[in-house]
């Protein structure tokens, strides 16, 4: 397996990596097919399904009616019959319409049918942010799926992992909830042209550091890495970890890091209550002795519905400045509260998405 630090291949966007992964797998395995709202239209899910309809034809790439409940069942049935469906959702919020099939059938079929069937399907879902995505176009609901045994949940944050994880997800014999963040779509990384997998259950230490461990989930990995830059300026060295897959979750890598840094900050692109951040913290606390842990904290969405106005939306999400400030307070609890200067922080902010779609 190659690794993202090899700088092999060429710079490719996250969305290009998704497209390439599906295209290569469809070439390799005729049982792979793509279905979902808008997968065939001129926008091709921001480009992630672009070119596939022309290349693979209407039997293998098709638009679905707005019937998420039944379509989830259709994907599950096809998977039980030995096919490998990729069911695409342009917003994670729309997965709520598929919950019955995903939770009551997909997650349980293998177990409740005594191992007689498997459900090798991928459910791609995109999380939106900014330009007024608001209440129903912005939710990071991965923890809901983590709660139920039988589903795998993966949230790659780089183009490299997007390709490797999607190929791994397609080849997996279980239902995989594939979490994509829209603001990651046009970030790029070195991505090998050949096919490769990023195996689930292996967290990646993105940058080493001794003062604090920061775990960043999905898009919050990018924000955490920017926060790390800000912290370096005041002499704090954060170890930033990307869990990549949430089920299975590699808590060992995180625990090993925290045992050294003695401080853990988990930043999730979701609410914190009963969330992935709560789960990661719980696993660390269950494993380490109290004396091994000096500070532990999590950041996530504000405990409100996502507002649309920029003045409030800004406060809703963790950002590099708020992450850096929280980390600073954990590493130097006696020091005055510190925040990076407005100008420096502004440079670290993610480029905002501009609408309308």
């Amino acid at each position, binding site marked *: 397996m190659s690794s993202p630090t090899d700088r092999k291949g060429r710079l490719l966007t996250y969305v290009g990596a998704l497209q390439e992964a599906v295209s290569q797998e469809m070439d390799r395995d005729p049982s792979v097919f793509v279905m979902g709202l808008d997968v065939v239209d001129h926008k091709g899910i921001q480009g992630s399904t672009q070119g596939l309809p022309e290349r693979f034809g209407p039997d293998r790439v098709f638009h*679905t009616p707005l019937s998420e409940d039944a379509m989830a069942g259709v994907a599950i049935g096809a998977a039980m019959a030995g096919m490998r469906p990729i069911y695409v959702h342009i917003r994670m919020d729309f997965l709520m319409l598929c919950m019955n099939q995903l939770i009551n059938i997909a997650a349980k079929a293998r177990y*409740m049918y*005594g191992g*007689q069937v498997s459900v090798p399907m991928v459910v791609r879902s995109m999380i939106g942010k900014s330009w007024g995505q608001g209440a129903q176009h912005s939710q990071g609901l991965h923890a809901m799926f983590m709660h139920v045994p*039988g589903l795998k949940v993966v949230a790659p944050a780089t183009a490299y992992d997007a390709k490797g994880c999607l190929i791994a997800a397609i080849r997996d014999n*279980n239902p995989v909830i594939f979490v994509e963040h829209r603001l990651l779509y046009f970030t790029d990384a070195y991505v090998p042209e050949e096919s490769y997998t990023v195996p689930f259950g292996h967290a990646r230490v993105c940058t080493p550091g001794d003062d604090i461990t920061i775990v960043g989930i999905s898009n919050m990995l990018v924000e955490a890495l920017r926060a790390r830059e800000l912290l370096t300026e005041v002499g704090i060295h954060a170890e930033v970890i990307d869990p990549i897959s949430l089920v299975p979750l590699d808590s060992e890598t995180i625990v090993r890091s925290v045992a050294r840094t003695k401080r853990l900050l988990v930043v999730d692109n979701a609410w914190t209550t009963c969330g992935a951040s709560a789960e990661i913290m719980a696993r660390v606390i269950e494993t380490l002795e109290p004396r091994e842990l000096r500070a532990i904290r999590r950041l996530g969405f504000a405990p409100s519905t996502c507002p649309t106005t920029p003045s409030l939306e800004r406060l809703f999400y963790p950002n590099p400045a708020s992450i850096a400030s929280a980390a600073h307070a954990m590493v130097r609890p006696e020091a005055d509260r510190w925040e990076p200067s407005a100008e420096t922080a502004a440079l670290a902010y993610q480029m905002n998405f501009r609408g309308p779609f």
Partner: protein
Amino acid sequence: MPRTSRRAAKTPSKDDIARLYRGLFLIRRAEEEVEHVYPSDKIKSPVHLAIGQEAVSVAICDALRPDDVLGCTYRSHAAYLAKGGDLGAMMAEMYGKATGCARGKGGSMHLVDMQHLLLGASAVVGTGIPIAAGYAIALKREKKRRVAVTLFGDGATEEGCFYETLNFAGLHKLPLLFVCENNFYSIHTHISKRWSNLDVCGRARAFGVPAKQIVDGDIFKIRAAAAAAVDRIRRGGGPEFLEIHTYRWRQHVGPGGDYDAGYRSEREARKWMKSDQVARLAAMLASATRVRIEDEVNAKISEAIAFAESSPFPGPEDLLADVFAD
């Protein structure tokens, strides 16, 4: 259809009758045995008995090839056995034994036999309908003229996924037969209190799906209708819909009747009991043939019960097995 086979559909041969009777009697006796064992508490599983409804599953499956696929509901014993599901594995499943069809982890509501292409049953009403449609996509692709059948009750037609699947199956001309087993009651509530329009066939036709209704429970009529529909579907005609009236003699769940509960009358049931297809076919057979079939079936059931009784329970190592596939 050639004239001879049309006549055959109308006038069943002795072999047809014997075969169908064997199917009906097996289900009736298997469920009576479940009722018999139930008070012992050896079966710790909610059982939804199909006694009275056997003809639907038997007739539909008689019109299928062994390589066709059937999905059913949590009232699954009849469909499971009619499709050829293993009787011993079914009994063992209800006993919670490791030799059960779902290794003791599914119980009566989740019978499954993929070897005989009986898709696993679901306890959430209607959920199996789109699953069968997904299977039908695979069957359509492989071009072997196989057909998928989804069996569901009147209650399932109230779920959104029923309409969503009708639309999708019609759009993609899937090789899928919808069979609505209308026993008039969703748990304890009659369709007249649930449906704004009793014409469920009309709802299927609204999606361009041809529909036929059979109201008298006649096993030969059901079989003929199913055979004709399956034949058209096999030849690429797209999905069809059958509404088959039938009647549940027992309570919604558990052994015994519930005619004293007040939501339905014994008089209503009597009409269906008079046209009981098990008794009807028994009377059509020479007594030696009938007795031979019954003896064979009874022996099979005793064997299945003995198998269930003597099989081991799953061990602690099985608790976490099959949460994920390898």
